């Protein structure tokens, strides 16, 4: 698990920033262009998966520990629920777009428009990126340790 060759390490350390920025772009312009929270979150997670493939699992675990990723995961779900319940408190019904109705009308096709939908996209992107990163990290932790089990059989 020491990672790949120096060529792969150099190229992936250059390119990881661009993948991350592209994921953030897809997430925050999800109400204007194709994409949104899920696609942006997958791209954000894939930048970390690239690092995991190039540098090994331990490097990524130092950068973003398991507990921190789990907290980000929970934070995304919590933010999404908070936006939904704020719609119930301020607008009268679950998931009401209260920002668009009352506080921030905004022009169509601008970045600041559509009320709570960009905020929901950011929450979904956080949730999806952290949980997909956690899925791949936990799958890579498992090692097929057959020898110990065969000893148990005997």
């Amino acid at each position, binding site marked *: 698990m020491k990672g790949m060759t120096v060529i792969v390490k150099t190229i992936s350390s250059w390119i990881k920033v661009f993948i991350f920025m592209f994921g953030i772009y897809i997430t925050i312009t999800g109400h204007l262009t194709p994409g949104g929270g899920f696609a942006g979150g997958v791209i954000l997670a894939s930048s970390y998966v690239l690092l995991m493939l190039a540098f090994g699992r331990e490097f990524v675990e130092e950068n973003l520990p398991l507990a921190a990723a789990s907290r980000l995961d929970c934070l995304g779900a919590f933010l999404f629920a908070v936006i939904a319940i704020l719609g119930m408190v301020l607008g009268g019904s679950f998931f009401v777009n209260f920002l668009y109705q009352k506080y921030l009308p905004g022009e*169509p*096709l601008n970045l600041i428009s559509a009320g709570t939908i960009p905020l929901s996209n950011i929450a979904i992107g956080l949730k999806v990126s952290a949980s997909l990163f956690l899925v791949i990290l*936990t*799958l890579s932790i498992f090692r*097929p340790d057959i020898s110990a*089990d065969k000893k148990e059989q005997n």
Partner: protein
Amino acid sequence: MLYALCFLLFMIGLYCAVVKKNMVKIVIGIMIMEYAVNLFLIMLGYRAGGVAPIVTRDQLGSTLGQVLPTFINTSVDPLPQALVLTAIVISLGSLALMISICIRTYQRYGTFDITEIRRLKG
């Protein structure tokens, strides 16, 4: 005709999931079945010569907030696409679950062959 091809793809996935004995191949068959259903749903909403259902500045009339009727008459149905996006997310979650079950089974038994996995172990 195209719907028959979708059905054929579904049947290939079903064959793979039922006949094969390797657990990983069963997982691949289940995913092929899911993709066949997704393709069928996308094709239900397609319209010949339609445009993508994305509102850009060209599709808006002189007054912002009013979509041109030509856009409405030519765009494909966005509802199956949203449904399929949700289905893709759920199939990703179920794929992760199935793969982790395969890994744990291999860790326990040392094989992927379902005919050799006979008795339960704690």
